């Protein structure tokens, strides 16, 4: 086994440990009251879980030697998920700020 494959396994395991927290929050928020804030936070968490799971898949596929699929498709895809998370986070920050500004004015 190559050292890079070992690193891929370690990466996959570490990301799997990380995904437990946001996945737990998604499951927990399913039963909670649905307001606008919690729905948005849930969407953000789902995107974060998507990013982590894509990283897990990328490292697992990389371990088996499918470099083209892993590096050429799954890694950029996981970065798209991270980009989406960043954009959504930015939007939610602006929305919250706007809402509070309106509350202050009224």
């Amino acid at each position: 086994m190559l050292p890079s494959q070992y690193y891929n396994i370690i990466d996959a395991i570490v990301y799997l440990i990380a995904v437990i927290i946001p996945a737990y929050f998604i499951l927990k928020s399913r039963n909670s009251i649905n307001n606008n804030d919690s729905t948005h936070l849930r969407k953000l968490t789902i995107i974060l879980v998507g990013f982590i799971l894509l990283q897990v898949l990328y490292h697992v596929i990389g371990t088996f030697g499918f470099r083209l699929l892993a590096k050429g498709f799954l890694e950029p895809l996981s970065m798209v998920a991270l980009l989406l998370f960043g954009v959504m986070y930015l939007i939610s920050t602006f929305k919250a700020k706007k809402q509070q500004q309106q509350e202050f004015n009224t």
Partner: protein
Amino acid sequence: MINIFEINNTISTSYFLHSMSDITLILSFIPLIIFVWLALRSKSIKAFQFQISIFIAVYILGEIIENNRIAIFSTLPPNIGSQIHVGSAIFFTIMMWFRFYYAEKRGKKMIESDIDGYDDSINDNKSTKDSNNN
């Protein structure tokens, strides 16, 4: 005998992988810029934005070293890029678990708003307004 088709295939594959790694780098720089900007606005190292921007920065560093795109990094020992990737993954996991632990302990949100300080200033302004009206 050399198989020309195989060589061409290998060259095109490596070219494709190089271009995809460039795309990955560009894609990862955008969230880094977003989170660094948000972290600068929040002005706190405890903020989620700051911590995730560190994770992305370390990830990008690992990616650059792994791809051997900068000559200075070619002197580094092999697999250092992968090791940095592992480091960023461990940092991300520790960050998630610590945030969860402290959120549970203090009963706070795991991802705080960028406008937490802003909330306080609004409340202060509101209270001054009320006192002035009275």
